């Protein structure tokens, strides 16, 4: 939220996020140059993430929460493009919902669009290599994306206020009430989502989750 971080921290997190955003932007530019048809697909993916972030999910604490959609984006597009899409979604949240903010944009992009997706993408690649079942891979990737996002947000606040260890524990405890149930619910949601998508449009999912060929069966 606007006003929560001092200007030094705002500048620090924005500077840290910039290389990832620039890399993501060049990835998008390359995709658009190689196949201009992908422009609309990317834009619709961004809109899809934005619409997802407005869906209210039931939370264990009795309140409702919103999915971030970055887990989905990480699996389908990687970290760089997720960072750029996060910038757009966070700008929309600031301008259409007055959530987040402009001075804290760098910090928010770093936690939601870079740190979470970066760790989750690494784990996702390892799980794909280790041939872990699709449902487990999706669940862990999505939960991890949300979980790391909330840990990094706590770290950002703990660095800005009080003694680091004490503050970190306090901020983690406050966020845990809503964020851990949200991460689990979003994990379940995307596991069911990928399962339905595999059945409805296998051509979309085979790029990320290639099907095992069964010997002796005609394709």
């Amino acid at each position: 939220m606007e006003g929560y971080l001092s200007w030094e921290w705002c500048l620090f997190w924005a500077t840290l996020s910039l290389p990832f955003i620039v890399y993501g932007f060049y990835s998008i530019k390359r995709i658009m140059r190689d196949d201009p048809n992908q422009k609309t697909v990317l834009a619709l993916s961004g809109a899809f993430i934005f619409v997802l972030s407005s869906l209210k999910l039931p939370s264990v604490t009795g309140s409702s929460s919103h999915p971030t959609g970055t887990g989905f984006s990480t699996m389908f597009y990687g970290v760089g493009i997720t960072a750029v899409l996060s910038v757009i979604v966070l700008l929309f949240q600031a301008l259409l919902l007055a959530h987040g903010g402009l001075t804290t944009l760098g910090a928010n992009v770093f936690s939601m669009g870079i740190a979470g997706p970066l760790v989750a993408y690494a784990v996702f690649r390892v799980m794909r290599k280790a041939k872990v079942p699709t449902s487990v891979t999706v669940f862990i990737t999505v939960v991890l994306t949300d979980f790391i996002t909330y840990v990094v947000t706590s770290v950002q606040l703990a660095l800005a206020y009080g003694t680091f260890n004490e503050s970190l524990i306090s901020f983690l405890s406050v966020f845990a009430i809503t964020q851990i149930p949200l991460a689990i619910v979003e994990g379940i949601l995307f596991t069911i989502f990928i399962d339905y998508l595999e059945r409805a449009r296998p051509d979309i999912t085979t790029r990320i989750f290639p099907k095992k060929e069964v010997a002796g069966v005609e394709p």
Partner: protein
Amino acid sequence: MFELDELAYSSACIKWSPMGKFVFVMTLLISSLLADSLMVPVVVLIIGVVLLGYSIRFKFPKVIGIILLESLGLILIGSIVIAAVTAGDTVWSIDLYFFQVNFTDHGIFTASLVTVRALAGVSVMLFFATSTPIPYFADMLIRFKVPKEFAELMTMVYRYSFMLFDEAGRMHLAAQCRLGFRGKMNTVRTYAQMMVGMFIRSIETAERHNIGMQCRNYQSNVCLFREPKGIGYAWVAASALSFLALYMLNLTCVQAGMLLG
């Protein structure tokens, strides 16, 4: 979701230069962040509330109230944690059976400063949001020499969001009619089905739109029916003067030891 955008199109400040508004808003936000005294964020809050009121013609709709209440809730929770974790001399403590929460003098000052800064930020952001539609913001980014592709992607995401929201609304209604939101697990399953439906339709729509746009010789331009104004000298002067005035106010308050955070 798009209530603020609707307000922006009917705002009293829609004809003001988006670039000018952006520079002015950023000046206020940065001045508020740089200040050590509570006085500066209070002044920024007053400016923000007056500008917001003027922007929405002093008719405060329900959505503004909801946003303010939500923000207040988040700001209060954050401020309580900040007051509890900041080191200093304990002035107040609460015993919560398992642990004790101590509020320090420095913590309370810091939390007050953060609360007023956040409120000032919300009011100023609401002014900008209720007076600047997204396509105007994208046009402003192009004028600021942000790569055209980014502004174009942003505009396309904004336009497609309406389409997807429309689709999501229809699916939500249909699912409700079929008792799709009965029970927590059933709700999650229904949302997953809705998401797949939305995703598949969005891919199909993207394919159709792409053909349509190619037929109309789409050249990646962000076109607007009414071009917004560029930044004038008046905006630059207003921003520079307000920054100087707030900076001086902060210095005066610090020297006088007034309302220090």
